């Protein structure tokens, strides 16, 4: 969806007169496009006027207490921060192991003198399967919050004939820290040695980069996994870049929302 198409719908969006699917698509664009977001914000503010112009009605006197009790009850169910982090670390480790054991990319790639694009494609497909499994893990674990948004995507190299590829997953959650996982593979472990360390960034626009971490070494399959949790909203970081030590982009791609993951269970 480009800016022209988005702006055509912003008035209706502000008025709450677009279907939920369309609103989601618009919001994804607004997450990274500052110009459209500014326009949307101004229209939203104008629409807020309508609610304040209504003749005020008196809520029942006890509604305030009920609202406060309700919020406190739900807030109290949140796990303490330390416990959550511990569980998160375990879950991430399990997710990583699941992905690696499922992929077996070392077996696929190791010992191959010439890595064809087909092999890289196959490994990437396996990576994607691994990330799908992580999505399932997230869905079935303590992260099971209907408001969670899981973003998935693949990373590719610009260079023709390059065998390196990657996959990325981000989890944006209102109730737990957000998580990003990036997996790369297909690099020539020997030839890439001089290009290390790789630095991995999440990207929210032309000037907004969030450092995910550094890859100092590759495994025998020319791959690595990087994961990190953030105390900020990752939903608008839809780009992923992997840079070598000279700041050349070696892999890049974007993640997009996986609607099936965000749908609450019946």
């Amino acid at each position: 969806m480009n800016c022209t198409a988005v702006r055509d719908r912003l008035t209706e969006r502000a008025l709450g007169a677009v279907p939920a699917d369309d609103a989601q698509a618009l919001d994804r664009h607004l997450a990274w496009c500052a110009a459209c977001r500014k326009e949307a914000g101004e229209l939203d503010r104008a629409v807020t006027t309508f609610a304040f112009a209504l003749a005020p009605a008196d809520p029942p006197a006890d509604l305030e207490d009920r609202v406060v009790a309700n919020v406190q009850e739900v807030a109290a169910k949140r796990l303490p921060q330390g416990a959550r982090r511990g569980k998160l670390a375990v879950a991430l480790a399990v997710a990583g192991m699941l992905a690696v054991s499922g992929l077996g990319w070392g077996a696929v790639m190791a010992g191959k003198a010439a890595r064809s694009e087909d092999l890289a494609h196959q490994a990437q497909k396996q990576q994607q399967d691994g990330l799908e499994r992580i999505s399932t893990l997230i869905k079935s674990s303590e992260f099971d919050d209907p408001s969670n948004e899981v973003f998935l995507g693949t990373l590719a190299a610009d260079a023709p004939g390059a065998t390196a590829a990657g996959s990325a997953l981000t989890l944006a959650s209102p109730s737990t820290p957000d998580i990003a996982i990036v997996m790369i593979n297909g690099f020539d472990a020997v030839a890439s040695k001089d290009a290390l360390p790789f630095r991995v960034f999440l990207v929210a626009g032309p000037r907004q980069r969030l450092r995910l971490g550094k890859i100092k070494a590759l495994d025998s399959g020319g791959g690595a996994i990087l994961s990190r949790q953030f105390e900020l909203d990752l939903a608008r970081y839809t780009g992923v870049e992997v840079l070598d030590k000279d700041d050349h982009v070696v892999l890049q791609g974007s993640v997009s929302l996986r609607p099936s993951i965000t749908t609450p269970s019946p």
Partner: protein
Amino acid sequence: MEGLLAGDDVAVRAIYARFGRPVYTLGLRLLGTREAAEELTQDVFLTAWRKAARFDATRGRLSTWLMTIAHNLAVDRLRRETGVTRPTLVLVDEVPERAGIDEGAVILERDAAVRALESLSDAERRLLARAYFRGLTAREIAEADGIPLGTVKTRLRAALIKVRRANEGKEPS
């Protein structure tokens, strides 16, 4: 907002004191019953708590954020409840007598909002009300009125921009 996130009693009460009535009023007017308005108010504050970490004060006002949540939840509910007769609403209606209650800030806020809407023609107010209160899309309005879709979009946008200009510097924070 950090207080809201933690479920802090004082923080939730402070936000309720400021926005509880407008949220309830919107629920009552859109959904038609006190019970539905109370449920909506509960849902709005719970949703606000769940999304509090994502509220960015540098990107928008708290009032806009909360009232947008309220309106979206109310419209979603109306859409789910097929067969519900939606009330016919206008953007500006009469203020009932409210003697004896000191509500200076609320009255000033409403006055500002009403003045902003007075910058619109009757036709513009009716058009915006059909979208905002009834959830009609521009296409649905165009088909009902037999006018081009582009015309409806242009009119909606022009009307909203008028409100925005009339509102500049006067909106609630």
